[in-house]
């Protein structure tokens, strides 16, 4: 039996309607690769961590195809801003604002994310 206080087990938390919603352990987020999380109301969020440890969350649904797959796209940096490219038809989305970089009229919801 160990009594050591767990200090390393940071949780990834999502800001939802004024509250923080814990999603998973920070360690499950591989830099450069996303995971999808299910929200209580049925929406899905794609969560990402970049190589500097910053966290991002956007809606998981690819607005161009309707499939819930954005978490499975490749991430990158475009003009200093983080993005994910949809794995289906490759449109890129800004991870901070949810804006589509390849079609100004399209954007997905972006969420505030923290680890604590």
């Amino acid at each position, binding site marked *: 039996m160990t009594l050591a206080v767990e200090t390393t087990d940071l949780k990834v938390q999502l800001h939802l309607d004024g509250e923080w919603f814990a999603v998973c352990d920070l360690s499950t987020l591989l830099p450069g690769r996303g*995971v999808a999380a299910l929200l209580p109301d049925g929406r899905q969020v794609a969560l990402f961590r970049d190589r500097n440890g910053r966290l991002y969350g956007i809606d998981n649904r690819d607005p161009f195809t309707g499939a819930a797959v954005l978490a499975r796209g490749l991430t*990158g940096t475009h003009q200093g801003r983080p993005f994910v490219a949809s794995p289906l038809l490759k449109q890129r989305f800004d991870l901070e604002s949810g804006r589509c970089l390849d079609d100004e009229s399209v954007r997905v919801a972006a969420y505030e994310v923290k680890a604590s």
Partner: protein
Amino acid sequence: MSTATTETTPTIVLVGHGMVGQRFLEALAERGLTATHRVVVLCEEPRPAYDRVQLTSYFSGRTPEDLSMTDMAFIERHGIELHVGDPATGIDREARKVTARSGLVLDYDVLVLATGSYPFVPPVPNKDATGCFVYRTIEDLLAIEEYAKTRATTGAVVGGGLLGLEAAGALKGLGLNAHIVEFAPRLMPVQVDEGGGAALLRTIEDMGLAVHTGVGTQEIVVGEDGAVTGMKLSDGSELATDMVVFSAGVRPRDQLARDCGLTVGERGGISVDEQCRTVTDPHVFAIGECALAADGRVYGLVAPGYEQAETAAATIASDEAAFTGADLSTKLKLLGVDVASFGDAHGTAEDCLDVVYSDSRSGLYKKLVIGRDGTLLGGILVGDAEAYGTLRAFTGSVPPVAPEALVLPAGAGAPAQLGPSALPDDAVICSCHNVTKGTIRGAVTEHRCTTVPEVKKCTKAGTGCGSCVKVLGQLVDAELEASGIEVDKGLCGCFAQTREELYEIVLALRITSYQELLDRHGREAARGGDGCEICKPTVGSIIASLAPTIGAAGYVLEGEQAALQDTNDHFLANLQKNGSYSVVPRIPGGEIAPEKLIVIGEIARDFGLYTKITGGQRIDMFGARVEQLPSIWARLVDAGFESGHAYGKSLRTVKSCVGQTWCRYGVQDSVRMAIDLELRYRGLRSPHKLKSAVSGCARECAEAQSKDFGVIATANGWNLYVGGNGGATPRHADLLAQDLSDAELIRLIDRFLMFYIRTADRLERTSTWLERIPGGLDHVRDVVVHDSLGICDELESLMAAHVAHYRDEWAETINDPEKLARFVSFVNAPDTPDPVVAFVPERDQIKPDLPLLSIGLRPAEPLEDVLEGSTQR
């Protein structure tokens, strides 16, 4: 300030907030009129202006919010009073007052009517029955969707014009059997002629839509509950259908104008002059689809409406402007078919000639209308509208090449490469926003735009229907090159090197980490960043190809490498359109024992997968959810199967014909050779996929000459062909060497493949590579057969290392619990499947539930119980 309702601030009231109305507001703001006037808008629909032209894209995932054209910040910034859901109900021209449904009464100095049109519904019995719809607004579309999902399996569209085809496409997308009923003898009678209609018909029927032309709708048949059950047609037949969408044309919404005594045309439309002012009352304007323009036409397209909006705004600002008529050119992608018509498409001018190219087998039809003096007057393109942008811009002038050269398909005769560089500066490139070539060049030279998106922002070109974007791109490139701006040959925004150069760096410096490569060799600005979706998989592939030699992990999901892989490689399966995956076990040479066939059948049955024999002589199982992949593979691996790498840029299949063992003509054992080759090169990551085949004799039943490396048996051994390709641009393979022994053949293929992997660009098949590299086939033969560069030993040892270190990715993955943990739909609900991945039956198997994709979410079920690890309070 602008909200003050003092007598000194003149008031502009806009009735109708559609596409043209919104454009009018923007034009007012651009001219500073929003600062000097009070601007009030009465909007009938429950939402501000949205992109009606793109309405149908809702069914491919765009939400109503995505379609919005109204930036609320713009409305606020300009102090525009927007009354949503409050239509105008009456106009008192004497008192200059407009009354709205809410009771609001507005005094105006200038009144602008932009009320658009309404769908015309032919007066047939039961036209208002439950299950009858029109297709004009977002509300219409939501109602159609709801009905289609809950009560219909078949739908019929009345009207085979542009909108009718869009509506039919939408019904089909909703999973219905769709019918189109058109009174005219052909589809899209307004835009295309008979030949074009025939080409269109064939293509649309091939898509599974039923087309009935030359028949009218006489009556809607209803059941006992009053809902649609079918329709009676003028030829006496009856068509069973659960719903009907009327799309038989539109009529101007001019009732408001009629009621207050404004003059309207015989067939409707508020009569206006060239300034878009009504001919009856100088205080009232009409723009967009409700207006009957000075040239006697009512325009049903958005571009002329925009021009009218500009004209009205300019006139109100006391600037000079006139709308004297517009081009009716259109280019559409209907149900995936390109249809374009421009200028005098039907050849109404006197003495004109037609140049027609038609290939009904492939649904192609192209017609140009040419004047006696060679002037291009107009044309129709069906099936391939590539040339639309250029041709439209040449309309009214004599093109610099013979007209027939402009419509011949690429490859036939000498297709004219008539680039946009041949256009004069005043040629209109974007007709939606009336942008000329000169303006676009100016954006590059004067405003220093260096990319297409920048030029779009600067000139608005390409931001309407989008049909000019291709020509726009060519112009921007040409202009950049002319200004001496060097066109960057680098792989992407992160690396200035080509793929080949990166390969050399990785090999020479034994770099096994992408981040290290980026931080040391990337472009200055990209260092320390996260790279991009182009260079990550490219570098991932280079590292994987060289793994054993440079000392990297040979397993693509190891450490950092996992983050570099495209989604398919990351899940070791092929992503399908609804987010499910397909699974393709390797069946080397296409040879499979009955026991293994049974295993595949059992697995597919137990997991409910759709099975299909692929074009690569093996079996694909579709519809696996991400969380099912490990259990499917556990059973496959157990039965002795391996990954087929259908997902990888790597060896796919080596097809075989049955060969000497059974076939009376066979001269070598082609099956054995195919199996040997497939097992030797399996798992080899390369710039693009690699395919091969082995035929047992010159009859070539395995189609080896269409493969990246193809082998054909001879009496004395094997002939090796390279650089073949099927796909979009087929190429026959070239003979590299003849009458090889088994060992010689394999050695030569080893060298060939490794030389290709070393020098090809990203996503360059061997066919394009062979055509591109200096010296072509002769050079490759010199290098791999005659060892002219002295690198053959190295090429062979690189391949030897690959062969020695190959391990099955799936076997490795199912034995690694940490990797398996990634195969879930939701990190916080590992046992919950993605609700968007659902299936419906078809021909005794499943297919994706595509309508579900367009809604995204069925009404929520309680989810709390499935969510793990949440600290919700």
